[in-house]
């Protein structure tokens, strides 16, 4: 019909071209902002680079960064802190998220409002959330000290940010508060996809509420659960702003995770080669961890 300009993408034999065409912008963007920097940082991690510049000539290949990394107690400390944080935060996010999801999945008056409340922390920007929590845990004016003293748990104000244990706890609390709504939203979506008849059948079979939770709800949520858990773990793993704004990694490196350490090495001490090495190790750990999680996820649904 129309000759000259234009490809007739509606032709069956060309239909896949349209697919590629639509994919192209996203692929290009991902390549530009994720793949390319990734390659660069892997490359840099094998060079002795202080301040990375793209117009610099290549430095000779070296594994010094990695050797230094694995012999550094700071690195092992950061790994340990990260692991603790991931386990504690993921666990509590999961418990709180599932609990709140089960609560707001019930039909009651004000259900929509309750769901909004549950999801609210998710909508608060991380830095603002951190500032709020930093004030709540402030040693002189903080709400928490007042509450704990009133309740009789402590008799003198706690300086939350100068004790390693307390600072770590505060970071955990903040991250859990910020992270559980995501789990809750995902769980709620999962809960709503469970057919009512599963519960009806179980009730006719004489299963009580606990048996229904353990035998139907949890197994039916498993696929969503696995993915959610991975996303939460990765979020804790790489989250930077909460810890940086709250404690900056201190006191005494008690809250220094791998991402904080990477930042500090790269932009505090300008050891970009070394920082890249930490980044690469973090990446590998994340990939392995999520592969394991997905691999273990049951294939039943």
């Amino acid at each position, binding site marked *: 019909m129309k000759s000259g300009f234009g490809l007739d993408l509606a032709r069956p034999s060309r239909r896949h071209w349209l697919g590629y065409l639509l994919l192209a912008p996203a692929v290009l963007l991902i390549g530009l902002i994720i793949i390319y920097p990734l390659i660069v940082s892997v490359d840099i991690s094998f060079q002795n680079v202080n301040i990375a510049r793209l117009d610099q000539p290549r430095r000779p290949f070296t594994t010094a960064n990695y050797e230094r990394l694995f012999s550094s107690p700071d690195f092992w400390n950061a790994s340990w802190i990260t692991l603790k944080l991931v386990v504690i935060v993921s666990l509590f996010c999961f418990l709180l998220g599932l609990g709140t999801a089960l609560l707001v999945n019930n039909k009651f008056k004000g259900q929509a409002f309750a769901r909004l409340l549950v999801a609210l922390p998710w909508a608060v920007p991380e830095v603002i959330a951190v500032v709020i929590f930093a004030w709540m845990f402030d040693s002189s004016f903080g709400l928490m000290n007042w509450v704990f003293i009133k309740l009789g748990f402590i008799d003198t104000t706690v300086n939350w940010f100068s004790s390693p244990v307390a600072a770590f706890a505060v970071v955990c609390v903040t991250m859990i508060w910020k992270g559980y709504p995501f789990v809750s939203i995902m769980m709620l979506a999962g809960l709503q996809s469970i057919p009512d008849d599963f519960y*009806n059948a*179980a*009730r*006719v*079979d004489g299963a009580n509420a606990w048996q229904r939770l353990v035998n139907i709800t949890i197994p039916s949520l498993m696929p969503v659960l696995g993915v959610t858990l991975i996303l939460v773990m990765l979020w804790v793993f790489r989250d930077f702003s909460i810890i940086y704004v709250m404690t900056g990694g201190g006191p005494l490196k008690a809250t220094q995770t791998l991402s904080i350490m990477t930042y500090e090495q790269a932009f505090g001490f300008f050891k970009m080669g070394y920082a890249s090495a930490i980044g690469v190790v973090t990446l590998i750990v994340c990939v392995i961890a999520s592969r394991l999680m997905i691999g273990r996820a049951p294939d039943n*649904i």
Partner: protein
Amino acid sequence: MAGIHIENVTKSYGQLSVLKNFSLEVSDGEFVVFVGPSGCGKSTMLKILAGLEEASSGTIRIGGRDVTDLAPGDRDIAMVFQNYALYPHLTVRKNMGFGLKMRGTDPTEIDKRVTEAAKILGVDHLLDRRPKALSGGQRQRVALGRAIVREPQAFLMDEPLSNLDAKLRVHTRAEISALHKRLGVTTIYVTHDQIEAMTMADRIVIMKDGAIQQIADPDTMFKKPANLFVAGFIGSPGMNFLRATVNTNGPSPAARIFGYDVPLRIPQSFAGREVILGLRPEHIAAGPGAVTFDVMPRLVESLGSEKYVYVDVPVENRVEAARTGGDERRADTIIARLINPDERVTEGPIKLSFDPARLHLFDATTQASIE
């Protein structure tokens, strides 16, 4: 095994009454089918029986025990769901044994009963598969199996065949009937399909808008429908309806249909009253008979063994669609179902006849049957 006694059960959501004064006595081992169009309250009644919904008033007794306010699990009933409700994360074996496990039955006993039930239903080779790996018919059997391993006092089935294809449905229908004969457990079966109701039931409960229209065995339901709704619902194709006014032009009361005065066996006092005459398609024959009329068929459908002849109804005999349950077809057309018709019945005018004794009479205002 036990009888079920339902007394004056009602259910309403606020102003909306979905079940009106439902009373029914089901004897031990009986197969009762609740049938009706969607929204008639049949599934609600079943859920109330199962304890999944609360009755607004009334009492239910199963095996003489008042279960009105008992939890579903304490009623000793088993239910088969429309979508089977098999748990996708459990194997067939575990699905079938779920109810027993929840009740804390001994594992070896569970295994014995599951194997036994699986043998009865012919699914013993599938026990270690997941529901996902089964065909529709197999899933349906597993759902039945899950009900029978419990050895309950009654089975409740909520449209268990509606997810099967037509051929399998006929097959499974017969199997459920056979299973019922073998086990002899009281069964309440809900369906919207009158054929399922007719073929399986000992007794049918036909419902509309939350009210029972008639309770009878299938043959009575077919031969003596209590009202216009039942008459139109049971049978396929549905009964033909013709409106007429009773006259006394002749020696006995008669109604003028298709331009003929057809004598009716009703008292003289009906003269002048409007009635609706019901005539089943299969009671119209080709060729001359007691009442013969010449018609021009609008359409002839052949099914091989039988022919459906569609005939336009004279305006004076047309029934407003609303009266017959909203089935528009019946307003201006009747169907004659000619079994083994001769080949000539294809085109052109034909002679049709019927026996006036086959006519069903309904009051045009109350829609109740006139006997």
